[in-house]
């Protein structure tokens, strides 16, 4: 499956009258960009292990030291927390799950993908592989 199809679902849910729909839109936006990067790296033999994969991916991107990837890692961490709140925090203020908030998650995911594509998946995979070699981590 093309992970970016999660963004189509996020777009469909963004305008939902149900808070649950808009929460799910935020969640799908995160998974669209997360899986886009993980899959692209995996296709280039840089496999993010399943255990603590979300945290590891951000750490690896940040560990490259590349300015754009460091920023991308921080944005991804923030969007992941938005997803955690959307998926788990049932008592959170409903105002936090407005249509605009869902749109922000969508736009942010698009911009992150644009940044990732601009750097180039091969380059990112190479930088991450270098980082893993430097830190002697297995992948």
């Amino acid at each position: 499956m093309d992970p970016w199809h999660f963004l189509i679902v996020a777009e469909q849910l963004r305008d939902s009258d149900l808070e649950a729909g808009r929460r799910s839109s935020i969640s799908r936006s995160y998974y669209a960009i997360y899986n886009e990067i993980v899959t692209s790296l995996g296709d280039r033999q840089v496999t993010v292990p399943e255990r603590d994969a979300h945290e590891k991916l951000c750490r690896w991107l940040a560990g490259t030291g590349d300015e754009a990837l460091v920023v991308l890692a921080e944005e991804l961490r923030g969007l992941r927390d938005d997803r955690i709140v959307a998926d788990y925090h049932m008592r959170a203020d409903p105002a936090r799950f407005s249509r605009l908030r869902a749109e922000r998650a969508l736009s942010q995911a698009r911009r992150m993908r644009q940044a990732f594509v601009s750097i180039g998946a091969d380059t990112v995979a190479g930088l991450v592989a270098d980082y893993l070699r430097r830190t002697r981590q297995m992948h």
Partner: protein
Amino acid sequence: MSTVVTSRQARIVPTIDKAAAAFADQHSLWQDLKLAIQLLRDKFPGLVAVRVDHMVDPEIPDYEHLYVQSTVAGDLEGILDCEDAFFAALCACVGVEKRQFLTFTVIPI
């Protein structure tokens, strides 16, 4: 991108919950948190409020951090441009060993 901090922005005092304050104490995060909040004031002309919560990750064991949420008024694309500028400045000013304890998001209004 405006980096002029208005008196209104300068007056914005973050709301920090008890657990977040205790976590900041425990990991000596106050200096970095203060710097990050100043960067939020600098980079977001439409900043309305800042709230800091303690986040316990439900999916990753023993992973706790502070979740900094900024409420920002303005058009969405402009806010996202401000976010890019904020993160670039944050990464230049706050080391990765402290950033691992902080995440940031924006609530647009």
